């Protein structure tokens, strides 16, 4: 029972539609590709409609149109912002130089957020935590050293284009296998995660819809 729908007739009908759509998706397993394609299109249509509603009702109207209409002088920055967006929307008909500025602002702003956050929020704190701290527990020190060694080996596996000295090549190979092991572990997490979703869907059909699960 996911509890998202109430026990009223609308909730019951929605549960039935969701259960039938789930079974229709599973029909792909026995080769019913057309039904599967129809359900894919249904999902795509619903997602597109939802995104349009969110864009209009939660972004454009309350954050652009209404502020500009009610208190334009308080939101002067929205005007050049709107002009840049208009340039992007009309990029097909404008010369490329005219579109370069809003594109540069967009890419630069996104990159600045991502790069600054990655360095200040992840890289530096994680580097600091990776150094063995004198006086800390031996296990913590050993873990930190092992982490640094593994990081170094994996980093070496990414070295390309340099003259491949045999010893370095062997070390890089170890790093590559460590990387493969890491990716394998992550895929294991992924399998467990997806399996939980399958169990949840079967539980939904058998329990919430058919009432067979105790």
């Amino acid at each position, binding site marked *: 029972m996911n509890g998202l729908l109430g026990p009223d007739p609308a909730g019951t009908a929605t549960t039935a539609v969701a259960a039938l759509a789930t079974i229709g998706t599973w029909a*792909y397993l026995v080769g019913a590709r057309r039904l599967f394609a129809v359900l894919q299109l249904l999902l795509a249509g619903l997602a597109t409609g939802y995104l349009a509603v969110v864009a209009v009702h939660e972004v454009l109207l309350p954050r652009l149109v209404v502020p500009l209409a009610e208190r334009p002088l308080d939101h002067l920055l929205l005007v050049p912002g709107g002009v840049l967006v208009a340039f992007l929307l009309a990029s097909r008909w404008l010369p490329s130089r005219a579109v370069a500025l809003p594109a540069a602002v967009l890419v630069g702003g996104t990159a600045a957020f991502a790069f600054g956050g990655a360095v200040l929020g992840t890289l530096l704190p994680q580097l600091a935590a990776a150094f063995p701290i004198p006086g800390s527990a031996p296990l913590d020190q050993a873990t930190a050293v092992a982490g640094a060694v593994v990081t170094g080996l994996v980093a070496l596996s990414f070295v390309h284009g340099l003259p491949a000295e045999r010893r370095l090549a062997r070390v890089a190979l170890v790093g590559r296998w460590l990387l493969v092991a890491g990716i394998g572990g992550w895929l294991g997490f992924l399998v467990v995660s997806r399996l*939980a979703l399958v169990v949840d869907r079967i539980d939904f059909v058998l329990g919430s819809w058919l009432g067979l699960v105790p």
Partner: protein
Amino acid sequence: MTDRHSAPRPRRALLPLASVLLISAALIVPDQALSGLVRLDDPGGPAAGELRALIRSLPERPLLLVGFDPDLGTYAEIRPAVRAMLDDLFRHEARIGIVSFSPEGRALAVAEIDRLRRAGFEDDRLVDLGYRSGAEAGLIQTIELVVPDAERGLVANGIRIAGGGLDAFDMVLLVGGTDFGPRAWVEQILPRLPDLRLAAIAPTVLGPELAPYRRTRQLIALVATLRDNAAYVEMVRGGPAPPPDTSGGDRPADAAAMLVGLLVTLGILGETLLRRAAWRQPGPRS
């Protein structure tokens, strides 16, 4: 779009169909029949206990922000733990604001807020802070102001009185997804508000990405595996019953069904490896 070359032929559909039937059988068998044989929760794991202790350590009537950005693909995995967390918070008389930065998170937040309101939580306990566009940029904007101008009610006013921004909250609890998750909060908010306390519930697939943040205490609590999810749900349900129970009868993934599914997965993997080994052996092929 479908790929007609990758679609399984009916003859080869027997295995997935048998898998679904086996998992169904494991779900239908009453839990009592398998009592003690398989458990999903990890009673000795520290992650669930840390989140529980953190919520218990909150001051009276705390003001909390829930950053609600799960995705449709993985929310089913963490849904029971998220609801247990909300139960836990309401049990501690928390005042909660819910905000989303991804469209999918917003869709799920609307559904959960509707569910909570049906369960009787009104504006004196809960405020819908809506959807903030702009991803990281929108997130940074909330440092100064997180309450929409039009929002009224006791919780909204409480946030305004406390400053109106993120530092008005005693803690931020993050419900993560693959589109927008705790990592964005750690990278964008903590460098700007280092004293803000962040805790997270995330799907298993994000576990490897987020675990280092727990080690550095940038996330002071993290529940990001199925076993920790189940342990946390058990912990909360083991306490005094919250008035009312908002879980909607939700429960973590069934342990027996998960075990059957894992065995089937291993069987498929083994069969594939054996077939590949046979293919590589020299000799005449039919």
